[in-house]
């Protein structure tokens, strides 16, 4: 039982390049989330999904797109990376309904030059 995993762990991009971050969970959770963590800003929600085939915008969605084609995977895409997107990205998942625990992945450290 791996929990929540993220690929890749580290990445360096040049401005304008694109990439996709993959989040996978093996706990059969309905809800999945993408956050970014920046010094002094805490965790900010980018996008989230309440089930397979659904996505919704969070607090800071601009410049990102997401897809949830399979229940266990939640992809975060950057179409044209900018230096302001340099951050640590965390994926999380939780069971549907109720005040249940949210499980986090190990994070992806992204640097955009």
């Amino acid at each position, binding site marked *: 039982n791996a929990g*929540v995993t993220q690929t890749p762990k580290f990445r360096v991009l040049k401005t304008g390049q694109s990439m996709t971050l993959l989040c996978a969970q093996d706990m059969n959770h309905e*809800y999945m*989330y993408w*956050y970014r963590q920046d010094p*002094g*800003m*805490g*965790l*900010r*929600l980018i996008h*989230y999904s*309440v089930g397979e085939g659904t996505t919704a915008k*969070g607090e800071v969605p601009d410049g990102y797109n997401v897809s949830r084609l399979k229940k266990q995977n939640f992809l975060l895409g950057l179409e044209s990376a900018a230096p302001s997107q340099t951050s640590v990205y*965390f994926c*999380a998942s939780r069971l549907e*309904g109720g*005040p249940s*625990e*949210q499980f*986090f*992945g*190990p*994070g992806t450290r992204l640097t955009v030059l």
Partner: protein
Amino acid sequence: AQRVTQPEKLLSVFKGAPVELKCNYSYSGSPELFWYVQYSRQRLQLLLRHISRESIKGFTADLNKGETSFHLKKPFAQEEDSAMYYCAPWGSGNTPLVFGKGTRLSVIA
């Protein structure tokens, strides 16, 4: 709008001293409240939740509805408590957890 405030960015205490990490929320209704902890270069993990009323690693948190606060407390800080702490209220249904900006706790030997 739903908001959570952690007023201290950094809190430094000596080993063995009491610790209180503050969290204030602005929510309609009665949210459930969580504290998450992130040790250096690790993933966030649940520390405790109000609904279970348990004590984890010596930490407790009391919900004060009158003051809309959910402060995290520990009577005697240990060096291994040094970490980033996030307060997170949960509203209802599909709403995501909203995290505060976090407080970095540094326990000095």
